């Protein structure tokens, strides 16, 4: 039997009287893309935050690679190999695209407290950073200031930085948002291959992408998981159709 890479057990998080996470349990298995869908405000980003370490759950646990990481902070979880992208881009906007990618490479493979050697001349880190940018189609934008990128390009850079980490699992919060048709198509192909390097917990609103990519889907509604299953099972699920897909079909 294979062990889950990431295992979330009975997570509850209250914001006042609002249960943003209500007894949520979820597994991410090796090699899979596990999509997390649900209407706006269902608690998807809140759940991602609790997995990555930015928020502490009121109850429940997060296990990563067989280790209880519930008490660890974001930095420690990242060092264990959790790679995350943000719904709202969190990038160094005044820095260049290459510098942002170098930061990722530095965090994962470099020595961030070294103060004398110029980082941009570090060939090893540069290779990692450039390969990630190439893969995300940003190779002609190395010297562009990040703040000048289009919204879609920033999303691509978010994913590129996560790639530089060579993480053991990806957490991606709406990476397709704002990408446009061809961007979504390209990223779908990239993520499809990426699952073999590390499994992906994918929050996404674009249903075509979700149905094309997901090995399993979990549906979140008012902080609760109302269904988990394969694409076909979820498409057919009556509660899901009512709570979520009903809006679209």
């Amino acid at each position, binding site marked *: 039997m294979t062990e889950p890479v990431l295992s979330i057990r009975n997570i509850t998080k209250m914001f006042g009287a609002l249960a943003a996470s209500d007894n949520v349990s979820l597994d991410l298995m090796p090699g899979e893309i596990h999509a997390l869908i649900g209407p706006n405000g269902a608690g998807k980003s809140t759940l991602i935050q609790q997995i990555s370490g930015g928020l502490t759950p009121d109850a429940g646990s997060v296990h990563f690679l067989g280790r209880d990481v519930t008490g660890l902070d974001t930095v420690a979880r990242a060092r264990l190999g959790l790679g995350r992208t943000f719904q709202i881009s969190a990038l160094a906007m005044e820095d260049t695209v290459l510098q942002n990618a170098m930061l990722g490479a530095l965090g994962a493979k470099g020595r961030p407290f070294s103060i004398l*050697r110029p*980082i941009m001349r570090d060939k090893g880190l540069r290779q990692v950073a450039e390969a990630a940018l190439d893969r995300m189609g940003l190779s002609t934008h190395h010297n562009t200031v990040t703040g000048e990128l289009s919204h879609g390009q920033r999303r691509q850079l978010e994913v590129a930085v996560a790639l530089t980490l060579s993480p053991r699992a990806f957490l991606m919060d709406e990476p397709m948002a704002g990408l446009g048709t061809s961007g979504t198509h390209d990223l779908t192909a990239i993520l499809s291959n990426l699952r073999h390097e590390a499994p992906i917990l994918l929050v996404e609103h674009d249903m075509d992408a979700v149905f094309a990519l997901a090995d399993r889907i979990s549906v979140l509604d008012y902080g609760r998981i109302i269904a988990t299953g394969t694409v076909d099972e979820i498409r057919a699920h009556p509660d899901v159709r009512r709570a979520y897909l009903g809006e679209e079909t």
Partner: protein
Amino acid sequence: MTRETWINAALALGLLAVPLWAWVADEPFTITLATKVAILALAGVGLNIALGLGGLVSLGHAAFFGLGGYAMGILAAHAQNYTPLMEWPLVVEGTKSMPVIWLVAVIVSALTALLIGALSLRTSGVYFIMITLAFGQMLYYFAISWPAYGGEDGLSIYVRNGFPGLNTLDPIQFFAICYVLLILALAFSARLARSPFGLALNAARQSPQRVETVGISPYRLRLLAFVISGAITGLAGALFADLNRFVSPSMFSWQTSGEIMVFIILGGTARLFGPVAGAALFIFLEQALGGLSEYWHVHLGLLLLAVVLFARGGIIGTLAGQGARND
């Protein structure tokens, strides 16, 4: 070379040319003013690492400036009175040697910055400003109430401390010492900005979440920045005390912290030579306006307001335009 590099070179040469001219023309007061610019710029280079690169608005850097000053004052006072600094558990004598004094100033400032930083960097924004201010004021009142070292009156040192092979009483030679230290600090600061640490610190200022997510602790980055920053400002404090041959609690005052920050804002926050341009303008204005009116600080305040409102990049930013800070 970018436009900013040319401006920096012009500033470096200008700060050298003025005292050389004054030396030829036998105007020692002008040399003293240039020395003051170099020392205050050095203090600013220190603060700029925390403020410009790290985004840490410290209103307590007078703590390090003052500690550097008192490191000089205390060591030199014991040396000139032939009394040991302490006798137990081992005998420590005072010293009149600049390099030793600098080393002590840097170490004491760095350790204090580690302590203050470790506590205050747990907060951010206005709380951080207030806590750093409070630490500075604590040292200020401590210095006032410590009669062994002059209390409110401060400490006078009769003869400037020595540097091997130089006559430090000669204004141009003392200027040379301060100038070289400033250039070394600038070179170090430029390298720091391009280093892995510089990249990460600068990113932590822009998006701490991003830095955490790649597995680097913004807190630790900031703490190291604060320590380096405090150490450089402490060195400047030791030189400043030697320039005046006098230390007093006013080196610890919040006005001192404010002035160091003013150099940076005037010159251009996070610009390598910002503190040099700012300190030079500050001393120039102090001389030009201070003679005209006792209230020259009001004029300075208006100028500062204009810079903050209309010229965010300060002098350097206005002259050089926007530029990538580290490549």
